[in-house]
């Protein structure tokens, strides 16, 4: 029998949702202040003042109406997380809609969901003339969403240790860096801020060396870093990374894309002196192996078609896209149409595999994740060994992730369920795309890009695409970022609300 959620439970969800919305409202003051002081753009800044007030009013009203002292359990926490990502999408879309660079509210919502989920698919019109204030907000989205919307709430607005931890779990993060969730949240932000400073300086200097003016170079650097480290793939100019025409800029971007796709727990281990972890960890080993395999497939496809004859061009056009796809960033040094018109099926398949598998767990990257790929591989090895060896032999399979662990059936089951969920998501978008008349490979490419939070486009994502496809991709980005569980929890909550007794 399904039990109907109690009023106290709904109030609990409303209270925590209100606190998170309040946090979203406060973050809008960042572009407001930057727009007024740094960029001298009072009109765009005003868009953020209006939107921040709306968000703060809703947040305060929800917190006041649903005021409660109860701590948050895991089920309702997942519902809060799923709803807070939808709320963040809708409220953050208001300033973008007010910019006049989006054809509809749905397009602005698509953009903000793409940003928060670190995807990078875009529906902006005339990006090259978008104000810096709005552009900063586009890039702040991935920086906030990548680290986690709930992480901000945990740091500033939410009290109660178990409630905070449950919110942390709801955002598909099941690894605590240190025993205290508050300290974990602080460390995640410490890593991100340290790299933000380093990345902005390095990319800014490279930008200046290729002829950008200092203010422009550092603005571009901050934007590219935020969207690169958080594996989102937004850029301030429409040609994306191709705009800079610089090998050095591309190499530095590769560094931040790969480092951004690392597990935060791995960063913690390395930054606290456990340097050997980077070479021993199952995720970094699997990542290196997968990159080698997809590089071989993609480059063989490109060679077969004779697209890039020179090794250097093959590296800059082929390998850059492979790393961008594998880390689920989505930065491009080619035009979207080139994927379909020039690359051919084999190279495209290589990129689709990279996008589908994704970066490391507990990072800003999307996709199935290297930890799961590694565990599935080890489980296969264990099963094959069991078949080949004597029936009485006990086969034990170990793997190293922070500490050495043994493969357990329970673990493999959990990994396979999430992996199947991702395949379902990839298939869902492909089905809708094919149903709307797009070729199969194009639809699969775009759907994998959306659900894997990558951001590559072969040309389907456009303001003129059908609204049903926009909604499908929004759902894919949202469910892909939350690794489905919180979305299922929300669905279950509604079913219980309607059918429960």
């Amino acid at each position, binding site marked *: 029998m399904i039990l109907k959620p109690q009023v106290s439970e709904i109030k609990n969800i409303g209270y925590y949702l209100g606190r998170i919305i309040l946090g979203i409202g406060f973050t809008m003051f960042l572009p407001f202040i930057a727009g007024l002081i740094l960029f001298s753009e009072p009109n765009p800044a005003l868009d953020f003042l209006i939107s921040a007030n709306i968000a703060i009013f809703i947040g305060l009203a929800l917190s006041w109406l649903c005021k409660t002292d109860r701590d948050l359990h895991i089920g309702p926490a997942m519902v809060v997380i799923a709803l807070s990502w939808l709320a963040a999408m809708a409220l953050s879309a208001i300033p973008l809609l007010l910019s006049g660079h989006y054809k509809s509210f749905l397009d602005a919502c698509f953009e903000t969901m793409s940003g928060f989920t670190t995807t990078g698919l875009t529906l902006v019109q005339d990006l090259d003339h978008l104000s810096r204030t709005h552009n900063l907000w586009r890039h702040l989205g991935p920086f906030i969403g990548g680290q986690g919307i709930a992480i901000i709430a945990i740091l500033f607005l939410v009290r109660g240790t178990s409630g905070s931890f449950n919110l942390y779990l709801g955002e598909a993060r099941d690894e605590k860096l240190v025993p205290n969730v508050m300290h974990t949240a602080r460390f995640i932000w410490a890593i991100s801020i*340290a790299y933000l400073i380093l990345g902005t300086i390095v990319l800014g200097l490279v930008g200046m060396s290729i002829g950008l003016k200092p203010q422009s170079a550092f603005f571009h650097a901050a934007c590219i870093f935020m969207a690169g480290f958080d594996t989102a793939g937004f850029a301030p100019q429409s040609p994306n990374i191709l705009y800079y025409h610089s090998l050095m800029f591309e190499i530095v971007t*590769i560094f931040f894309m790969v*480092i951004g796709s690392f597990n935060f727990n791995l960063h913690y281990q390395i930054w606290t*002196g456990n340097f050997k972890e*980077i070479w021993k960890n199952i995720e970094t080993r699997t990542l290196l192996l997968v990159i*080698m395999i997809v*590089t071989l497939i993609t480059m063989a496809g490109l060679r077969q078609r004779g697209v890039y004859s020179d090794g*250097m061009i093959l590296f800059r056009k082929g390998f850059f896209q492979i*790393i961008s796809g594998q880390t689920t960033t989505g930065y491009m040094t080619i035009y979207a149409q080139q994927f379909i018109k020039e690359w051919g099926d084999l190279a495209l398949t290589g990129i689709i595999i990279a996008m589908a598998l994704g970066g490391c767990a507990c990072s800003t990257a999307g996709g199935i994740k290297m930890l799961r790929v590694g565990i599935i591989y080890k489980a296969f090895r264990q099963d094959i060994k069991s078949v080949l060896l004597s029936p009485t032999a006990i086969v034990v399979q170990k793997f190293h992730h922070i500490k050495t662990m043994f493969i357990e059936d329970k673990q493999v089951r959990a990994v396979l369920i999430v992996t199947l969920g991702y395949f379902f998501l990839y298939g869902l978008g492909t089905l809708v795309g094919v149903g709307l008349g797009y070729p199969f490979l194009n639809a699969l490419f775009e759907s994998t890009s959306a659900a894997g939070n990558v951001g590559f486009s072969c040309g389907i994502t456009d303001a003129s695409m059908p609204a049903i496809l926009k909604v499908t991709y929004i759902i894919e980005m949202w469910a892909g970022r939350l690794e489905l569980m919180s979305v299922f929890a929300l669905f279950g909550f509604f079913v219980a609300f309607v059918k429960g007794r």
Partner: protein
Amino acid sequence: MKKIAIFYTVTLGIFWEVAYVVVIIGVGWLFALAIQFIR
């Protein structure tokens, strides 16, 4: 003294992360160079 030790460890940590990416870029570079000679 403690702050200097933390700075030193973090800098070394970043160095090892960068070293890992250098290996990845090296692999890509080698593959790109090797494949251009294969017909």
